[in-house]
């Protein structure tokens, strides 16, 4: 586990509470950054690392649930663990429905929090990996020439070289050369793999 390469953002208006959480996280080698309000968190420049948010529900100004909505609206994709001073079932249902990892009532068992944090960080790492993989595919796709893209779209749609040649008004041999280039540039080892890539890029592929 690469714990040093992750960061836990803690938003709680109570300074000793923030410090105690940081102390707890430090004791297992996790890095924590502290914020006294939702606004402070939104305005901060956050390191580009796998992370998660430990968020108090009751905050002055924007509440924790408001912040959850704001991050979603702003496209900040970060897993959230809620902590609250008093258990409130409707509130926790709302938070969980909106995608929270966990909802803990203070005081909580340290292991419950640490488990939730590990789970949240794992979720963020996966999401980040996925975003990076799609980013890579997209840049590869963008490196294709316009003609190669036309060929790729038709290959993954299941057309034969001859049909593609007919549609584009080129010979079958030329289509073959383009097709080879596409496989090469996209880094696809097989047609099936290319179809999967096209699917992830949102290109139309026939449903099997």
């Amino acid at each position: 586990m690469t714990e040093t390469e992750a960061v836990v953002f803690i938003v709680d208006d109570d300074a000793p509470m923030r410090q105690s959480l940081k102390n707890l996280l430090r004791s297992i080698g996790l890095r924590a950054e502290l914020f006294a309000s939702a606004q402070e968190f939104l305005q901060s420049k956050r390191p580009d690392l796998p992370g998660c948010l430990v968020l108090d529900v009751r905050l002055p100004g924007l509440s924790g649930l408001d912040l959850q909505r704001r991050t979603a609206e702003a496209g900040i994709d970060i897993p959230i663990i809620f902590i609250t001073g008093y258990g409130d079932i409707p509130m926790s249902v709302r938070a969980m429905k909106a995608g929270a990892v966990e909802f803990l009532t203070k005081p909580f068992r340290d292991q419950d929090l640490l488990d939730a944090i590990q789970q949240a960080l794992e979720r963020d790492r996966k999401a980040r990996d996925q975003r990076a993989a799609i980013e890579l595919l997209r840049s590869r796709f963008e490196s294709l020439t316009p003609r190669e893209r036309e060929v790729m779209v038709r290959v993954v749609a299941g057309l034969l070289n001859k049909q593609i040649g007919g549609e584009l008004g080129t010979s079958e041999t030329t289509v073959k050369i383009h097709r080879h280039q596409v496989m090469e540039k996209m880094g696809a080892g097989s047609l099936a793999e290319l179809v999967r890539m096209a699917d992830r890029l949102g290109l139309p592929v026939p449903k099997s």
Partner: protein
Amino acid sequence: MPNGSVKFLRVMGRPSEDGSSNFEFVGAVTDITDRKRAEEELHQKEVSLHEAQTELAHVRWLTTMGELAASIAHEVNQPLAAVVNNGSACLRWLAAQNLEEARQSAALVVAEGHRAGEIIRRIRTLAKKTPPQKDWLDLNETIDEVIAMASSEVQQNRVSLQTELADDLPLILGDRIQLQQVILNLLINAVEAMAGAGESPRELGVSSRKASELPTREPNSLQIGELERETLERKNLAEVEWTHVLVAVRDSGPGLDVKNVDPLFKAFHTTKPKGLGMGLAISRSIITAHGGRLWATPNTPRGAIFQFALPIHEERMS
């Protein structure tokens, strides 16, 4: 009646003489059973309405107590959670044989334990009305501290704040924290009263000065300023015996219903949707415990003035 039911009759009559020696009564007998029954039903309804209201009041009281308990629970939970976190961290540091970090964590546990105790102590003070912790203090300083605390509230609600603090204020004997609570309560009330008052100018004034006499009973109809001017005309300024320090918080909100001032100070009376209705009741009991008075008057041209007077103690005056 033969079938055992009861009928209500109304009998009216008056004697009449027809000139001869015959004496007769002329009158009417009315069956009012239906009316009587309707009246009884109405009465029954009133009784159950009253019961419902009593019950509602009780539910409201329970809800309020529930809210109060929730906010106390929140207050105490905070240090408690910090104790648990720091304690857990301490165990982990010990397991890692990092004694210095473990020592610091243990110190934090102790500090947070004290913080929880302090909160409990404050709540108990509030509940048991133990005598306040009195010190000599400059009320102007207390006012300034509170203004600093409330400044974000004041700004957020676009309220313009003016202070007029007398610079010759004698020190008074009082509990700083409790008096802060009172002033903060009055300030926040004023700000909230104006926040609901549309787009009219929101002016908040806080003033302090010495006073030589206080309105005795019904202060509602009396402007303390006028009363004092009269007194001053009669006496030479140097001879005036200052008895009180007066702090007033004026707002330009919707103001008060003059006939309805007293309920404001009752516990659980609130005009705010989220209020506990404890603020003014607690404030008044704090001021009373200081030997002072807290009252409300209408402001001109509109709004309210909440002010309190605290006695000046002689031993410090000379």
